[in-house]
């Protein structure tokens, strides 16, 4: 188990017919970190995760996961990874306890420690009261906790979590992340895909995927520092008209509305972006407050996933 990276992928591609679900993906996931995989639906997150655990054969490229070549001896890898599918695979017609017992049996978890381990997980993931409840009748958050408990039962070195929070409420999401940090602290490497910005921001590192292509990666701070854009925030009484005015304007790379605020991306090489935006708004007769601000991850995302044709000169 040498090597500082849990996952190293080189030129990983997966095509479904003409569709290039993933193209030439290079990845380096350091051990013991939470690595985020940020991208909209259909950007290839699940496909990548499935290739990494040997469920899908890459069209091109290869990866080394925990020292095992993929594709190849994925079989050796199975006991070392925990995988949570996008659907929270659980046996809905079995109780919480039965689900955990089944997973323990499947992973040949030592019989003597089995009961203690299951009790520990029930406690940790707040499922003690549900132990005799059928998994299918639980709430989204409870199902998610059970799925996580099942994925970590055999103490895997690497956890692959595919959009684990897309079907649960904000409180469950916060609790879930607290659990992930606990796992990372104890040395588990975690790869988690998401389309939530706030979750991406919590990761130690992340990669942004867009239509199968990795468009950026690094720590959240690195990414925010290297957008190549000025971020101008516009507070307008009529954000709709302001957006209309800016959408048509020259040098404006993108305009995103966030409530009553607009976030306007202006290419870095231009001088005094705030004045530029102010001028555009005034010439359209829109009253607004304009100020320069720092990039959020959302801005990074918008900047790196922008179609090439709209990019400013």
């Amino acid at each position: 188990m040498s090597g500082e990276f849990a996952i190293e992928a080189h030129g990983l591609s997966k095509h479904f017919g003409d569709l290039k679900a993933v193209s030439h993906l290079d990845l380096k996931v350091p051990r013991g970190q939470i690595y985020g995989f940020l991208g909209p639906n259909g950007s290839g997150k699940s496909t990548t995760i499935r290739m990494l655990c040997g469920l899908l054969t890459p069209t091109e490229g290869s990866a080394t996961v925990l020292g095992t070549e993929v594709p190849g001896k994925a079989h050796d890898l199975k006991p070392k990874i925990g995988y949570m599918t996008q659907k929270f695979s659980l046996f809905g017609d079995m109780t919480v306890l039965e689900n955990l017992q089944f997973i323990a049996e499947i992973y040949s978890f030592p019989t003597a420690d089995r009961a203690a381990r299951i009790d520990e997980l029930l406690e940790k993931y707040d499922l003690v009261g549900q132990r005799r409840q059928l998994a299918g009748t639980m709430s989204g958050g409870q199902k998610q906790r059970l799925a996580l408990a099942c994925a970590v039962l055999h103490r895997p070195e690497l956890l692959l979590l595919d959009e684990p929070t897309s079907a649960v409420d904000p409180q469950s999401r916060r609790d879930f992340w607290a659990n992930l940090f606990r796992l990372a602290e104890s040395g588990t490497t975690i790869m988690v895909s998401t389309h939530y910005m706030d979750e991406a921001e919590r990761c130690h590192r992340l990669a942004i995927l867009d239509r199968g292509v990795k468009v950026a990666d690094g720590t959240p701070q690195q990414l925010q520092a290297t957008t190549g854009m000025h971020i101008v925030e516009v507070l307008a009484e009529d954000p709709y008209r302001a957006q209309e005015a800016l959408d048509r304007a020259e040098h404006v790379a993108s305009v995103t509305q966030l409530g009553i605020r607009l976030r306007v991306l202006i290419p870095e090489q231009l001088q005094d972006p705030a004045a530029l935006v102010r001028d555009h708004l005034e010439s359209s007769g829109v009253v607004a407050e304009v100020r320069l601000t720092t990039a959020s991850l959302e801005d990074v995302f918008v900047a790196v996933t922008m179609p090439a044709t709209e990019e400013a000169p």
Partner: protein
Amino acid sequence: MKSLHRLLAITKKEVRQLRRDRLTFGMIVGIPVIQLLLFGYAINTDVRNLSTAIADQADTHLSRQFVSELRETQVVNIIRRVDTPDALVELLRRGEISVAVVIPPDFERRVIDPDRAAVHLLVDGSDPTISGVARQLQAMPIAFDTSVRPGRRDNIEVRAYYNPERRTPVNVIPGLMGIILTLTMMLFTAVAIVRERERGNLELLINTPVSPAELMVGKVIPYIVIGMIQLALILLVGDLLFDVPMRGSLADLYLAAAAFIAANLSLGLFISTAARTQFQAMQMTFFVLLPSILLSGFVFPFDGMPPFARYLGEILPTTHFIRLTRGIMLRDATLLELYPELIALGAFTAVALTAAALRFTKRLD
């Protein structure tokens, strides 16, 4: 050792889920019993108005009286009168009639002769229902004949043309056994695996150390037991309600059933690798079930089918199983005598299982 434990874990889980799945549980018992009752009683309903032709070569007062009594039973509908037995055979062969009655010229003498049958009834024996009816007619007394003649049982001698085995209604239940097991075994297995796929659980399972073989075998074991239970149920109901004979050895029958269940489970596994949804699995099951009903010799006599249909029929496990059950239950044949059918089932299992194992990789693509 670990492998065996994983396999048993899968089996245990399957049984657990089965116990909670009332619908499937009901089907295990319901399908055999309901089918058996349906088919069993359908074949017991009395048949009327069978197309009949008569060759009354005697043409006496007595013979005409006999014909009118025959007509009064309403079982036969006399549509033709011909002169010779040959003409009757011709009509029978062309399928224009199901029953032919020959009254020989020496009818009056035969009636009082204990050693010779008075009337010949030719029936289309390829239809089991009709041969059943012939039995009924056989017992019909000739009313005017009141003299007691010891040693004489029947006035009419039945020769089941095209069917030396003499199919009787009882014939249907050994066949039905094959149909019921085909339906339930194939459907349960296919659905059991496709359901995991549909619910996304297969993706979880194949990401665990479970091997495809462990998964497939582990999932199938409960259904082998269920198949055996269904068989016992069919035999029990068949015996209690329909008096189906069990002339051969029960052990032979169970061995034959084991080979047959293995064939169907293999096919179910193969279907499960091809179907993406439970609905597709069901469609594919019926795609196999229909020919199993029609081409296996269950409904139509195998020998009467065109060559192409016969070849298709030979591929189906049900065909071989029905031959086995009819042989063992009705003709007291032993497995050893019927070994070609066993070989056919074994070959089918090997091919289907190999195909399923090749298709079932621990991958999604």
